[in-house]
Structures are given as C-alpha cells and as structure tokens.
C-alpha cells in the first residue's frame, strides 16, 4: 500500500485516493475553434511515459481536494505533490525534494570474515566438550540412549525418542493427539513434528507426483515434506507439521502433497488490525533481540514480530545464551513502547514500509480457544524503519535417494534435540560441506545419538573435525554421500525409513573410480545434511531490494533497497554470533538515530570464540550419480536433477524458465530449502556462474495465508456496507423484497401474501396509474450548490441552461462527459439566486459530486461555488398518481395544491403532516406526482401519515421495479441501464435538453464530431413484441431478418429494458437500435433461445404520449 502525501492531510494510504489521469492537460479555451482532430487529441490522447509523470489525484476519502503528483511510473514513488493550479516542479529537483527520508540503499554493513572466522551460521555451538545446555545435564558424551536409561516417566515410555531432560517442553503438561488414526502423546512446547519424532514417527506421507515416502525434513516453515491436514478440532489443510504447535486433541493426517478444503463453513473469527511504529523488527533471534534491546527504552515505538511461540530464534535450537534470551525478553515485555508479537509471521513487504503479518492467536489452544477471540489476525504494519532479522535456512544437497524419511537438515535435528528434547534417530551419519553441521553432530552425540560418521566434502575440514574426532566420531574428509538404503521395518506396511548410507571419495568432480574405490556403507536411521545456508531474503526482495551473490557464503544476500530497511544477522550473511549480535544493535541504532531517538547499548552475551567457524564452506549442490532421477532438488514438487537437466536441454536459460518448466519452487514451501540448490544445479548445467544466474522473484506471501484470514471480518453481512434509508425498518416490516442499487438496499416490490413478483408489480403499477402510490426515493443523490457563480457553473456542467431557472422552479438536466456521452441526469431545484439543489441518480451520487469538484477545483477555480453532499440530509417520498393531490392536500392545509397555484416543475416549502417539508412537483412516471422532502429524523412520521391519509384511495407502496416500469412506459431512460457510456442525449431522443444558445458546456464540442452525427448511431426506441405476451430478456440482440443469415450476423442493437405493463396490457421493451428513430414501424427480430421473435419498433413513449396525465 503506497503512502500518498496529500498536500493538506499529509501521507495517507493510497486507498483514500483516486486517480485523475495526466495533469496539465487543460480544458481548451474555446473548444468550438478546434478541428475534430485537435478535439479528439484532447479527448483521447494522454502521455504514457516510463518514469516521472505528472498526474491528478483526488483525496476522495479525506479532504476531497484535487492535487497533482509527480509519480515515477516505473517504481510508483511519489516524487512530489503540489496543489492544483501550481506548476510542476522540475523533475531533478523533485527527485531530491521528495526523498526526505533516505530511500536510497540502506543496508547493513557486512562483517568482513577474519582470517579464521569464516562465515557460518549463527547457530554455532560451543565446543561439544563444554556443552552446558541450560536444559540440564545430559549425561555427557556417550550417554546411553534414553530408552535404556530407565529415567523416563510415563511420558518417556510412550515417547521412546524423548530425551529425559533436554528441551524446553513442559513435561508436566502431556498432550494427547492423533496422527493418521493412531493416538500419541506429546508435551506442551512440542510442534506436531517434534511430538511425532518423540514417538518414533518420521515418515509423514508420500510425495505428490511419484508417491515416494517422505519424512520430517526440517524444524521450521521451510519444511517441504511433512505437510499435514488437521482434521479436528479445526479442519485445515496443507500445514507444515514443523510449525503446528501441539495441543490436546489435535487430530492430523499426513498428506500426499495435496490437502482438502473443509466442506463446512469456517466457524472461527478472523480480524485485522492496523499498527504503526518507528521500528519494526522482524525475527526475535539473536540479531532481532539485540536490535529490540537497543530500542526498548528509547521512547521509540517498536514492534518485534516472530513466528514462534517464544523468542530466541536459532538460540532455541542451539541452546546457547538462553539466559540472555529470557532476560532480554523480560526487558522487552516491561518496556511500555515495545509490542512483542509471538506466533506472528511477517509475510508481505509492500510499498512505503507497509508490512503484513499473520498472528496465530488461538490455534495452539485447540478446543479450548475462546470463541470471541479471532483465531488469526492480520497485522497491517506501517513502520518508519524496518530491521529484518529473519535468519537463514539451511540448504540441502542433491544426491541419490536423498528423499528417504530419516534424511534431515542438520541444524533442524539439533533443534529437535535441544529445543524439544527429542532424538530424531538412534544412529546418525552427517553429510556436510561446512562447519555448522559439526556442532549439530556434537549436540546429538551429547544427547545420546550414535553419530557414526561425519562425511565432509572438504578435503581439509580443519579444527571442527578435530573436535569431532576427539568426541569419538569418524570424520571422512573429501567424501560424499552417494546413496541411501531403506527398508520397511517391522510390519510390511511399516516405516520405510533410512537404514544405511553409502559414502564414497569426493574430489570435486567425483570419478567412477573414486566412487567405487572409497565406497563404504554405514548403518544409520538418520542422515543429517548441510549444504550451507541461505539468508532468508524473501521480505527484503519483496521490498524491492536487490540481492547479490556472496562468494564466501555461496548464497545470495541482501544488497540495496530504496525502502528504509536494514538487514541484520544471518539474514544479511553474518554467520558468527558476535557479528550477528553487533549487526542487530547497529541496524537498530541507525534506524533509531534516523528517527531522532538515542539508542541504548544493550547487554549482550559473550559468545565463546571457539564456537566460531574456522574452515571456509565448500559450494556443492549436487553429487552426480548415474541415477539423477532420484537425486531430488525440490522435495515438495518431486523435481530431480534429471528434471532440471531436461529443462536446460529443452533450451531453458534462466531460473525463471526452469522454475516454470519443472515447477521447482512453486509448491507451498516456495522452494525455501531448494531454490538456491536448483539455481546452483542449473548454473552448472548451463556452464555459467550462479552469481550471473540470480534467483527467481520472491513474492508475498512468505508462507501461505488462508483466504479466511485475509478476508478478516469483511465477509458475510460485513463484506460490503449496506446503506439504508430512514424508512428501511418500515419496508422490512411490510415484507418488501430488496434490490441492491450501489450499496443501497432499495425496496424492489412489496408482495402481498401469495403474490409473485409479476403480480405484485402489476398491482403496484396499476395503483400509481389509477389512484395513488408512494415510494421511498431517499437514495437519490442530492448536492447543494452554493455561491455567486453557481448558475454559471451548472451551465457548464449541464447540457441545458440552468442559470435562467427561476427561484421556486425545477428543471430536468443531463450531464455529459467531454466526449458528449451521457453521464448522469436529474433535476435541479433553484433554492435562491445563488443556491441550487442538484439531484443525481442513486448509484452516481458520489461520482457526480466528484465530477463537480474536479471541474471546479482544477479547471474553473475562479468560479465562486461550493458543492456539498446532502443526500442523507433529506428523506424523499415520491407520491404518485391521479389521487396524489388529494392525499397531499389533506396533509398540507397551508399549501395551495391546485395546478395553477402549484404547477408542474415548481417546488414549495410547507408543513406536511405537521412536518417541515419541501414539496417538488416532479414526475418520473408521467402521472401527477410530488416528491416530498423532509428531515430523515421525521421521515417515518411523514410516511405513516401519507399511508393513513391515502388509505381511502388505496395508497400502495411501490418499489424500484414498479418505478422502472412506469418510467419505461413513458420512455424515460435510466442512466446506466439504457445507456452505457456510448450514448448521447440526441441518441436518447433528447435533443431538446441540449442547449443551442450556450457558447460551451461539457460535451458540446463532441456533438459536432463526425461520429456524433452518423446516421447509424443507436437510438433509444420502444419495442413491441408482435405477441403482446412475449417477454424479451434484457440484453436480447436484434436482427433484420426472420431467418438468421450465415455468421457474422449483423446486429442492429439490443434490448436495454423490458417489462410487462399493466397500463398497456402487454409486454414492451426499450432498445438501442441503429438508426432506430428512422425504423419506427419496422419489424425486426429478436433471437430468444432458438426462436426469432418478431417485434415492431415504436416510439419510446408508449403511454400517454400527449402528456395529459401529468397535471392530474
């Protein structure tokens, strides 16, 4: 959502504005002096440049002022705004002037890798020998697997892979859940994935295309495999088990890559809230927490959003510095201007630092969720400054059979051990290209997992390898995993889990000889994989930020962005904890300083220097294999190395091509673990550098958001506002059916018991023609036009003369666009020499007022005139029929109602039923009729008085359908029904409403255009089906012959209105027909279904053509 700076009101959401096209295209001084070509150029031609463009905008939902803006059409940046009538600023000047906040590159400085400190993950561990995870003593290295320890309680017995002490789960709060029909137990603090792993379940479903078994692969929103359906208590499809918080009674099933929408309506509440802050920090990992701590007590308004239930980010997975996390968290909770939003995923980054986030508020409560609290909430955050501390996702590697259940990202396995106290397997092999997996291996070992070997593609892995060896783990340097085995344990339908890993020598380009030479096989039920780290740059990219390839990291990192955003921590490519923390503080401090706040120096933890990475990572994507069809890149889409090779073989030359050709990256995980992997493989296939290949475009949402959440409370009755008149309750009480006219609810007809619509409308029409009827006409738009130049102004807007109207009288008028096409019609009442009341059609009220404002503010600012909407200031009742004078007269004793005293198109002020009223003698039916205007506060009193006074005459309430029939019998067009923006007043047969005397008015010049005088223009005419009972559907086409010729069939026009007439005793229609007025009396044919219905063209005025009934 752009912020557009209104010159008066300041920056407001773009939704408050509407566009008015190119600025500085003045209305010609003397249109009649222009050639057709010059006039057409004014009407139809506008510039369409790329770059700065001066435009008109209207602050329609605000101060209603028109102004000019210079917008860069390429970036949508508003470079300058200035008032109507002012000259545009020079563009170069504009570019500077319009950027008070630096919208140029604002990115974090990147930490230069030191001699030994190679970039690596923030989730670095202290040396394994110093493992002092706060979750308690672990038994140290070589501890027995927990199921043999005998230390587990009942929970552990039922959760064989639960560690007895590790993790942040609440062992006092066991939770029962069901997966694929089997009951299990987990703990508060589990995700569904961790609870499944605790129960020994890693296989969660099959893949979408190949039906291969797949298991839990990660521990976060990047999960490609473990996508599940929640069946109860609240059905929801396609959720990663790794992000679903466990709750009591949860019932879920694994999905084959495709879910099922619930068939019953969603009973939950959803809502949205707008929030504003000086600083939004996305991510509460070490960088985000450090940033928030620096901002907490500065007075700045801070929002810290994180997608997990508790802050800490990667520290929860590494179990480092959790005391600092806790202390910082408490500090933030106590800070008055800081709002911490847990369970909140920022999923979209839009213009002008507008970010959308979804907060999952009651999911984790399961059936205990309170009904009056929204289940999910969309936060619409407008931030002065943003710090993205979104961390990094671990990358996988492509090798043969890398998709078996039991293959898992290394840091994710570490998270399960440290955060959830769950062992993802018993016997593990680690396959890595970088140092970060060593810490995982050591933590798993400490927790009792038998880590048999670490397979490192690097020939000299260095210090971390020594530590691993010291912990008793075999390190195979210069090796790679080349295959996996899996069998079904136990029953024949059991777990198709990994059983063995095949390893071979790897020398960059592994040879067949090397593969067989160094080949070894390890028994394992868990294979931890780390192919490096991808900074989570999705939001930065959505913000318009550019990414650049970081050679050291082997990934794309944020570079520059024109929005006021910085990226900190591993999201910016910093992979050691001291840098991560320093970047968080630095980014927040710069943002705060820019907003005029003095940042604090927060307390930071002191990371162990030994925990830093030492040996540079190796950039490896795929381990070539004879069978690349089973080397998977995108697990969720079943895209293999072979698929990518076919794409490049077919000529695809960019990642955008291969993405669309193979669908890699298009599943609901959006390729979080596979995107760069696919890029690296495609680059190798094409023989280009990955830095030149780039990434595919990141678009919102970062993670899937349900439509129900996005809709919020804008559904059902609140989907669109319903406008009602002061008489609405009466209409409801009388059983009226309603028609939507714009947002108004208008009575359509009032059926009596047993009546259908046709019968009811015929009865209502007859009452109006034979006696008296009344309707609620309050919805008509009303605009008060005041000022010494009001008459001049209306003369320019209307096709006919308004300035000559006498006070006390009323005139019908038509407004056209400059192209001469009818835009609106209505009556104009002259209240005083300098004051008129203009009425508009119901649906066009706002557009007409806007139209008036545009012309008076931009083209004729010197005219002293003001326009004010008074639509709801007045309630209007139309009293129609030959007995209407009797009814009015009985209620308005002070009013001389005789025709001579109160003639047609006059108005009078008088009490009616004791209520101050303005009574207008206007007729939209051809009958004697009045429109009585009163305060809406007294409308019901008037209405009921009329109903009572009219009772002796059988006064009948009527709705819009009857109004339409009555007016159509008289040939009165409805703008927007009988016209469509291509119809002139002359086309409607209303040349009489187009002034010949006025030198100019909007539309006049166009009537001299060749197009406006074509003999075959479509005219509004009446149509009488030869069979008086045949009804022509609106929209029916008309053709010349009784036999359809071969296509293309020449179409003469179409039916615009069609009714059954009580007064005429037959059906009739109005139609726009080529040269229609010259065809009166001609027979045409209307294709209806498979028949050609013969019709005769008639005058549009079918009832009382002499106008005898108007005066009663």
């Amino acid at each position, binding site marked *: 959502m752009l912020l557009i700076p209104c010159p008066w009101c300041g920056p407001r959401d773009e939704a408050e504005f509407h566009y008015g096209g190119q600025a500085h295209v003045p209305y010609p001084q003397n249109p009649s002096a222009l050639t057709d070509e010059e006039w057409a150029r004014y009407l139809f031609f506008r510039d369409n440049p790329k770059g700065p463009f001066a435009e008109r905008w209207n602050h329609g*939902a605000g*101060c209603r002022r028109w102004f000019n803006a210079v917008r860069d059409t390429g970036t949508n940046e508003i470079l300058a705004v200035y008032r109507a009538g002012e000259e545009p600023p020079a563009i170069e000047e504009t570019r500077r002037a319009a950027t008070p906040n630096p919208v140029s590159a604002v990115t974090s400085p990147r930490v230069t890798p030191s001699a030994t400190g190679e970039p690596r993950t923030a989730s670095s561990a202290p040396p394994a020998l110093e493992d002092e995870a706060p979750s308690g003593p672990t038994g140290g290295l070589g501890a027995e697997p927990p199921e043999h320890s005998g230390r587990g309680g009942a929970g552990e017995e039922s959760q064989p892979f639960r560690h007895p002490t590790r993790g942040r789960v609440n062992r006092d709060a066991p939770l029962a859940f069901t997966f694929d029909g089997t009951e299990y137990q987990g703990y508060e603090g589990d995700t569904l994935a961790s609870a499944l792993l605790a129960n020994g379940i890693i296989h969660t479903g099959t893949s979408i295309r190949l039906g291969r078994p797949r298991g839990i692969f990660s521990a976060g929103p990047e999960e490609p495999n473990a996508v599940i359906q929640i069946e109860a208590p609240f059905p929801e499809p396609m959720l990663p088990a790794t992000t679903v918080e466990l709750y009591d009674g949860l019932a879920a099933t694994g999905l084959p890559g495709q879910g099922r929408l619930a068939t019953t309506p969603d009973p939950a509440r959803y809502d949205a809230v*707008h929030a*504003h802050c000086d600083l939004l920090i996305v991510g509460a990992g070490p960088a985000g927490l450090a940033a928030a701590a620096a901002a907490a007590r500065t007075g700045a308004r801070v929002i810290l959003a994180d997608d997990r239930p508790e802050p800490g980010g990667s520290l929860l997975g590494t179990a480092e510095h959790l005391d600092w996390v806790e202390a910082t968290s408490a500090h933030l909770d106590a800070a008055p201007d800081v709002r911490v939003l847990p369970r909140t995923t920022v999923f979209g980054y839009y213009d002008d630092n507008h970010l959308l986030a979804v907060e999952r508020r009651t999911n984790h409560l399961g059936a205990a969720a309170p009904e009056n609290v929204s289940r999910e909430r969309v936060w619409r955050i407008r931030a002065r400054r943003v710090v993205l501390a979104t961390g990094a996702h671990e990358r996988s590697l492509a090798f043969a059979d890398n998709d078996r259940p039991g293959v898992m990202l290394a840091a994710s396995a570490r998270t399960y051990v440290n955060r959830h106290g769950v062992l993802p397997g018993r016997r593990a092999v680690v396959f890595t290209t970088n140092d970060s997996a060593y810490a995982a291996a050591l933590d798993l070992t400490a927790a009792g997992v038998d880590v048999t070997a670490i397979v490192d593609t690097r020939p000299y892995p260095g210090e971390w390898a020594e530590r691993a060896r010291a912990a008793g783990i075999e390190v195979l340097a210069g090796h790679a995993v080349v295959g996996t085995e899996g069998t079904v344990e136990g029953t024949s339908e059991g777990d198709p889990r990994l059983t063995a890993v095949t390893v071979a020598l790897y020398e960059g380009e592994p040879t067949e000889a090397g593969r067989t030479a160094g080949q070894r096989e390890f028994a394992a039920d868990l294979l931890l994989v780390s192919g490096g780290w991808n900074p989570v740059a999705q939001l930065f990219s959505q913000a318009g930020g550019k990414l650049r390839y970081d050679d050291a990291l082997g990934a794309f990192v944020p570079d520059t962005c024109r929005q006021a955003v910085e990226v900190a921590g591993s999201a910016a490519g910093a992979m050691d904890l001291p840098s991560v923390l320093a970047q968080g503080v630095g980014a927040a401090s710069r943002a705060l300083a820019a907003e005029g706040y003095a940042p604090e120096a927060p307390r930071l933890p002191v990371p162990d220097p030994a925990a830093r990475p030492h040996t540079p990572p190796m950039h490896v994507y795929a381990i070539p294999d004879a069978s690349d069809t089973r080397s998977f890149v995108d697990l969720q889409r079943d895209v293999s190395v072979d698929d990518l090779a076919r794409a490049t073989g077919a000529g695809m030359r960019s990642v955008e091509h291969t993405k669309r050709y193979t669908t890699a990256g298009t599943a609901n995980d959006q390729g979080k673990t596979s995107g760069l992997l696919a890029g690296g493989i495609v680059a190798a296939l094409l023989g280009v550098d990955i830095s030149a290949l780039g990434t595919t475009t990141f678009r919102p949402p970062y993670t899937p958001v349900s439509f129900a959440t996005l809709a919020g*409370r804008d559904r059902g009755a609140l989907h669109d506002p319903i406008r009602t008149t002061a008489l609405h309750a009466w209409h409801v009480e009388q059983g009226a059916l309603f028609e939507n006219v714009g947002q108004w609810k208008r009575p359509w007809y009032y059926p009596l018991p047993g009546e259908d619509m046709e019968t009811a409308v015929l009865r209502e029409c007859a009452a109006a023609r034979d006696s008296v009827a009344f309707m609620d006409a309050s919805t008509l738009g009303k605009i008060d036009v005041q000022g010494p130049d009001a008459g001049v102004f209306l003369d320019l807007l209307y096709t006919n003369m308004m300035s000559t109207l006498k006070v006390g009288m009323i005139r019908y008028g038509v407004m056209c666009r400059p192209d001469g096409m009818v835009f609106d019609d209505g009556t104009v009442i002259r209240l005083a020499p300098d004051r008129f009341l203009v009425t508009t059609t119901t649906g066009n009220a706002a557009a007409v007022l806007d139209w008036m404002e545009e012309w008076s503010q931009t083209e004729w600012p010197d005219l002293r005139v*003001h326009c004010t909407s008074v639509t709801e200031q007045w309630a209007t009742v139309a009293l129609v029929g030959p007995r209407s004078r009797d009814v009015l007269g009985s209620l308005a004793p002070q009013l001389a109602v005789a025709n001579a005293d109160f003639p047609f198109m006059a108005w009078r002020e008088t009490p009616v039923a004791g209520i101050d009223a303005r009574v207008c003698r206007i007729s939209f039916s051809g009958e004697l009729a009045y429109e009585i205007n009163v305060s809406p506060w*007294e409308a019901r*009193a008037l209405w009921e008085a009329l109903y009572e006074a009219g009772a002796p005459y059988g006064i009948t309430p009527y709705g819009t359908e009857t109004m339409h029939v009555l007016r159509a019998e008289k040939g009165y067009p409805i703008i927007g029904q009988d016209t469509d923006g291509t119809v002139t007043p002359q086309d409607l047969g209303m040349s009489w409403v187009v002034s010949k005397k006025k030198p100019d008015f909007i539309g006049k010049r166009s009537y001299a255009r060749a197009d406006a005088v074509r003999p075959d223009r479509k005219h509004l005419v009446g149509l009488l089906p030869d069979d008086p*009972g045949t009804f022509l559907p609106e929209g029916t086409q008309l053709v010349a012959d009784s036999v359809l010729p071969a296509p293309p069939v020449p179409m003469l026009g179409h039916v615009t209105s069609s009714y059954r007439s009580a007064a005429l005793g037959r*059906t009739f229609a109005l139609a726009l027909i080529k040269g229609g007025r010259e065809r009166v009396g001609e027979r045409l044919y209307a294709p209806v279904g498979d028949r050609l219905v013969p019709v005769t063209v008639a005058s549009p005025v079918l009832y009382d053509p002499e106008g005898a009934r108007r005066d009663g």
Partner: protein
Amino acid sequence: MADTTTLSAARPHGAPTSLPSPSPVSALSPVSPLAHEAGRLAAATRTSGGAIRLAELPFLTQLDVRLDSKGAAADAIGLALDLPLPLAPNTVVRAGRSVALWLGPDEWLLVGPPGSERDLESRIREAAGDEPVSVTDVSAQRTTLLVTGPRARDLLAHGCALDLHPRAFGPGRCAQTTLGRTQVVLVARDEPRAGFWVLVRSSFAGYLTDWLLDAATEYMG
C-alpha cells in the same frame, strides 16, 4: 406464456385494505439513525466491563461552512461565533459546546448542540456580510458515535489505517478517513482518555454499528 388476459386479470382495482394497517400516527418525536441500535450499543458497553463505551450522540447540529480562509469573512465569523476556524489541516477548535473541524482548506464542519443550526447559520451569514460564504445544514447527513473507554483506540485500529496514538492523533486532531469500509470523520476528544467521535453518513450508520460491535466482540467479557 403470459398473455393480455392474465395481465389484465392481475390488475387489482383498489384493494386498500389488503396491506396491514399502519400503526396510528401520533406526534412522533424525531428518530435518529441509530435510535433502534441504542440497546445493542448499551449492551456492548456493559458486557465489555467498561473497556469499550459506545453510544450515539444524536441530533447534533452540523453545518458545512465554505469560504476563502484568507478572506475577511473567516475572521469575522470566528469572532461572531467566538470560535476561530482552524487553519491547520485536520485540527479542531473548541469553544463552549461547539467545535469547528477542519475538513479542507476552504471547508469546515461546525458541530454544536442539537437545535442550534438556524441560529448558527444566521450568525455566520450575518458576520460574513457581502463576502461569499456557503453554509449548508448537514445535521442529518451524518450521525455521531461516541467511542471511548480504555480499548477505544484498539477497537478503531481494527478498521482505521491512521495512526491514532496520542502522539499522532491527540486532542485537537480530526481526520476524514475510512473505518471498516465506510468513510468517517474522526475527532479525538479533548483529552486522550475521552476517546473519539466518529461521524458517519446516516445511511452507513447501521453498517458501521454492526462492524464496531463485531470488532468489539473480543473486548466483551
């Protein structure tokens, strides 16, 4: 297929008694747009335990005044009403029971106690003298909702994109904007805890009430 016979047969000839009789017309007092919602608004106020207070302030006098802010009339009117017209965008000036709201560079909304519109209009026109000034009674065009209580700002934030924090929208501020899906005039009352006035077009008042009560559900009980 219908024919003329059925059409004619369907034409009733005076059936005045076929509709239910109206309730007897009495000297009805004026009915405000949200009069029929008073019960729901009061119930919501009660149920929220005071966290949210909602009520209609009916029949307030509202005059739309248009004039050249640089002309002589502006000062003259300010003096005559003892209520200077605010010149800073989106601000209000209060005096006694009346408030002047800035709506545009040449437009103000004067809000006063019920029934004062004629007096106010004549005083304005008199003060303006020969200067062109447009005055339009719009008292019934909008009705006024009082939204107050400790959670008032949170409630409005569900549907209003403006920053309503006291730092940005404190006493003395007003704004025309959208709330939910309808346009409103928001006025910060004279001290932060006093909440807001929400002026809404009468035809949208029912919708906005439904919207507010739905948004307030969370603050109930």
